[in-house]
């Protein structure tokens, strides 16, 4: 099973692995390689930290308060009942 995963394959599939987009079998195989390989482990840790930082960008662009009112006004004018 995981014996087929070498460093090259682990790095090729790293994003799919971190995004949980691999099959269950391949998830296990790549995880085992990353846990055991001292060369790949820091790269995987870095990539995971990078994705975590990206996910925090959700909070960085708050919607202006006035926009909700503006959208609702537009919808009311288009026929949405208040």
């Amino acid at each position, binding site marked *: 099973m995981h014996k087929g995963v070498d*460093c*090259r*394959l682990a*790095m*090729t599939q*790293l*994003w*799919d692995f971190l*995004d949980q*987009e691999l099959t269950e079998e391949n998830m296990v195989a790549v995880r085992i390689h990353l846990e055991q390989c001292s060369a790949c482990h*820091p*790269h995987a*840790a*870095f*990539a995971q*930290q*990078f*994705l*975590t*930082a*990206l*996910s*925090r*960008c*959700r*909070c*960085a*662009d*708050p*919607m*202006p308060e006035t*926009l*909700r009112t*503006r*959208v*609702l006004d*537009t*919808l009311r004018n*288009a*026929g*949405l*009942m208040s």
Partner: protein
Amino acid sequence: MESGSQPVPSPVREDFDREVLAWMDDVYRFAMSLTRDASKAEDLVQETYLRAFRSWQTFQPGSDARRWLFTIARNAFLRGLERERHHVSLDDGDPDALGAIQHYAGLVTDGTDQLLSRVDLAPALTDAIGRLNEPFRSAVVLVDVEGQSYEEAAAVLEVPIGTVRSRLFRGRRQLQEMLAEYARDAGFAAARAPERGGDDA
């Protein structure tokens, strides 16, 4: 004869409120990532909701309203681009393993990784996302910021899953390069030695 838009009955209005209006923050964030301009993003949100309202009866109850809104927003954005005759590059490229290994090795050894664990990077990364070119920016925003799966992002972008994957690969690579530059400027990473030319004189 019909005379323009008809008022939407209350039960439908409640559905629209619950299913659609609740996602306005997410739609705005996505609109910001597309337009990179607050004023244009607000216009795009307004247009998205107007289109959503007008086609509300085509929405399948129980389906993903946020994805539906993202699709409407993106289509509205692309129509605007066509009007402005902007060209959108669709060069996706392919992931390559050896390049990825060398890339990661460089980032880890030059100290960029320290930045991730020690600094709130949301403002810098938001700025970096804004500097990504399409079509990479939309893929990164949908998957990495909005948490969509590859399949969901593919549906919004109307491309195969493999295309989402390769756009993510390229977009993330570009973001990491920008991050490395930021790390060097912030003193977290060593400046890379300039490449030597063929002439030492």
